[in-house]
């Protein structure tokens, strides 16, 4: 739990149009940690993940990723599942290995294992359109797990799901995480989800995107349903909501437009 898995050091990200997306980001994620990033839209939490994944490069500062030796050590789960609609569940999960030149037959057992992990056995030959939102997300997670990554970057993975699917997938993700000890960076706008899952919740603010608080959740795992209704849980949520409100003040003067219109 001590060595660094992935870290950003004094990172700024300025988009081509001049927008300062991130300013002075210092974030160290240790091996085996589950860290959530919460913040309003436009605070750059997805950009942090993209920088960590190498899908974008920092304008200043640097990325330290000692846990990432090859491109299989890191997996990304996108918000809308990002499945290929023309391919079956099996073919979608096969994709990362196919791009490495492994035939379907050669890695069939690994694919099956990944599908079993997310309880999708029996749906191998279904097409994404035949699946519910929650099941699509499971496929997406299976695809991420099939390469046995060390680091899992998740960009609002359950944001589009209904509350019941969300909490179910939360519990399943936690179980898998306790079993496999991945390092997870989890972006969400849902405080409850962040508190329930994480070792640490990193609170961000917008304009410019920056980190305003880093709240450790000192609750032992496994966390069960009782934690969700406990007073500590509520205390954490209130705390983080407060940090969010301090970091992202709503302008009160009548002359200034409400922030919802400007952001």
């Amino acid at each position: 739990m001590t060595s660094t898995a992935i870290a950003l050091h004094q990172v700024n990200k300025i988009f081509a149009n001049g927008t300062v997306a991130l300013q002075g980001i210092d974030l160290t994620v240790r091996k085996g940690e589950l860290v959530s990033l919460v913040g309003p839209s436009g605070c750059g939490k997805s950009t942090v993940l993209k920088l960590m994944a190498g899908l974008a490069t920092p304008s200043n500062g640097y990325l330290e990723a000692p846990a990432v030796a090859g491109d299989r050590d890191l997996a990304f789960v996108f918000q809308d599942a990002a499945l290929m609609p023309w391919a079956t569940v099996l073919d979608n999960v096969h994709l990362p290995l196919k791009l490495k030149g492994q035939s379907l037959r050669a890695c069939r057992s690994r694919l099956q294992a990944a599908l079993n992990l997310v309880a999708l056995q029996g749906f191998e030959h279904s097409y994404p359109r035949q699946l519910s939102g929650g099941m699509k997300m499971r496929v997406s997670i299976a695809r991420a797990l099939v390469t046995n990554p060390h680091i899992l970057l998740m960009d609002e993975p359950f944001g589009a799901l209904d509350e019941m699917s969300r909490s179910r997938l939360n519990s399943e993700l936690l179980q898998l995480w306790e079993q496999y000890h991945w390092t997870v960076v989890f972006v969400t706008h849902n405080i409850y989800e962040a508190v329930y899952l994480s070792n640490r919740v990193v609170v961000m603010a917008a304009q410019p995107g920056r980190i305003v608080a880093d709240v450790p959740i000192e609750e032992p795992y496994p966390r069960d349903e009782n934690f969700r209704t406990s007073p500590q849980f509520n205390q954490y949520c209130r705390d983080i909501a407060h940090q969010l409100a301090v970091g992202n003040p709503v302008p009160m003067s009548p002359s200034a437009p409400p922030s919802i219109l400007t952001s």
Partner: protein
Amino acid sequence: MILKEPQPSRVNAQGRPPAIAPAPKFARWWSEIARPEVLAPLVVGLLVLLLWEGAVRWLAVPPYLLPGPLLVLQTLIEEWSELFPSLLVTLLITVLAFLAATISGLLLAVLFAQSKWLERSLFPYAVILQTTPIVAIAPLIIIWFKNNTFAALVVCAWIVALFPIVANTTLGLNSTDRNLQNLFQLYGASRWQTLWHLRLPSAMPYFLGGLRISGGLALIGAVVAEFVAGTGGARSGIAYQILMSSYKLQIPRMFAALAMTTVLGVLIFVSLTWLSDRLLRHWHESALQREN
């Protein structure tokens, strides 16, 4: 005006649940035909033909001005041995031009997709090719290919059919889902892997849409070029028959040839639609049956 052919169903039969008991062939065929989207145009067509026949008889219109549909049908049967081979010549020109347009259009679109600069510099010329009236340049092309009119006709039809495929496929190749692009990048996919496994499948519905437009255009291009060529001899297409019939004031024969051309166009469209539905039936909205 034109003979109405029964409109085969546009909706694929694959997506529907199987019948409870294995129905006899005729019953299945009947349930396929007896649907509003098939019956309605059929009824309209029959009504128009009836009105047309009635009007021609009632007003005693001479057949060299407007033949009734029955006379057209009769002429079609009588002249079949002469008209049908001509139709096959036109069909051959159309198919060759369409295949050429499909392959060259796809290759051009893939080329455009490789670099924004290539697309920017070449796309305007594809537009120019499209906007140049084929009637105006057909004589020139026929002169260039002076020993081979057939090839000249194929080239004319190809020019007309090319653009929709290039334009649609280019659009499709550029409309790939951004997250999937990121995913491919993350797993270190090569340019060709991305093209083959991501961009081409994404472009498939657009490409097939282009094919549906181009199929009809290839036929039109072939007919127009044949009109300009006015070619005689063994390889004379259906447009030649239309021309000759009108010169000789054999108007019923002209109508019969015209009807054949139209039916051929409809058949081309229907078969391309069928192909498209078949290829996309598992995943694309355009080929899915409505659930409500």
